[in-house]
């Protein structure tokens, strides 16, 4: 009756999503060689990854294609956190932690990616656009001349990830003090609240007195 939890990865026959397929084809045609990779999940969403050079042109072309509603611009740091994940003991040894970077949908080559979303008004067809940010450059073009709303989002991404946006009118900090050092949303920026406090999961149960003595004798 209800879909079971999908821990099983049996590939069922994916339902066709002709609307989005047509849309994606239209977009791919318009963007041409700018698109590095694309992904479509039927009845869900579309992802494309474009080259850094065509980032601004992508916005203009998509706007011309009818994607006039601005969703957001943000960034993702794909480096696994050196301080462990969610429930882990942050104070534990970090040496054996896996630090390989694996990007999500539509792939990627760099640690940082800028992600944006545009929507066709009056429908729910939207598109997630990703772009690689090369470590040497750490900047992409700004969208603020295409979508006015991108202004604040780029400021936020700039201070949180340290990614520059070429052509942005005013990349001041939004949230942080001007002299703040570091970029808090980067994975290697420690969340102090979780580091100054001992992890609460450490079982703090004293063994029986008898056990204690045995241990004492053994040592």
């Amino acid at each position, binding site marked *: 009756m209800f879909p079971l939890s999908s821990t099983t990865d049996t590939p069922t026959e994916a339902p066709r999503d002709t609307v989005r397929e047509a849309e994606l084809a239209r977009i791919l045609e318009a963007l041409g060689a700018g698109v590095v990779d694309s992904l479509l999940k039927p009845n869900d969403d579309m992802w494309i990854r474009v080259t850094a050079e065509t980032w601004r042109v992508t916005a203009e072309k998509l706007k011309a294609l009818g994607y006039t509603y601005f969703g957001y611009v943000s960034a993702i740091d794909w480096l696994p956190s050196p301080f462990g994940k969610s429930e882990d003991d942050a104070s534990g040894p970090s040496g054996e932690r896996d630090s390989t970077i694996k990007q999500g949908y539509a792939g990627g080559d760099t640690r940082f990616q800028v992600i944006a979303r545009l929507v066709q008004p009056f429908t729910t067809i939207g598109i997630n656009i990703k772009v690689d940010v090369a470590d040497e450059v750490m900047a992409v073009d700004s969208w603020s001349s295409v979508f006015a709303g991108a202004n604040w989002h780029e400021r936020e991404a700039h201070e949180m990830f340290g990614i520059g946006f070429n052509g942005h009118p005013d990349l001041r900090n939004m949230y942080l003090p001007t002299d703040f050092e570091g970029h808090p949303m980067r994975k290697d920026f420690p969340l102090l609240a*979780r580091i100054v406090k001992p992890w*609460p*999961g450490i*079982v*703090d*149960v*004293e*063994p*029986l007195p008898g*056990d204690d003595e045995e241990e004492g004798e053994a040592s």
Partner: protein
Amino acid sequence: MAKPKVPGMFKGLGVTFATLLATAKNGADTVQYPHEKETPPIRARGVIALHEDNCTSCMLCARSCPDWCIYIEGHKELAPPRRAGGAPRKVNKLDRFDIDYALCMYCGICVEVCPFDALFWSPEYEYSEPRIADLLHDKAKLGEWMQTVPEAPELEAGAEKKGKK
């Protein structure tokens, strides 16, 4: 538009005057707090009460707390056996179970994850303190609140099974 249009200002005056009369007649919608109190709903998340005997200091609540505001310490102890003649059991005895209500955000995750039904919500709300450090309550205080824990409410028609708490 059959009836003549009343200027909006006079309509507004009418609304306030009608409320004035209604308040004079039916009484106010407010409650004079220290003298009369509203009873919170049964499910109200007022304060977390601890049933100490059920706790095995398994740390699940402390670990799943988003704020890390639960502090547990315990020691192992020999308890009398369940059945006569059996070997004495080793049980975890609580030494310390503190909840820092200055940090707690009343999300209820600890109550939910507790596998031994040791934590309950009580609708009690009058436990403010003049100093923030005094909001760290120990297991004795948490145990006192156990008396205020109500029975779980009846469920609305169409519900499938009884809720846990």
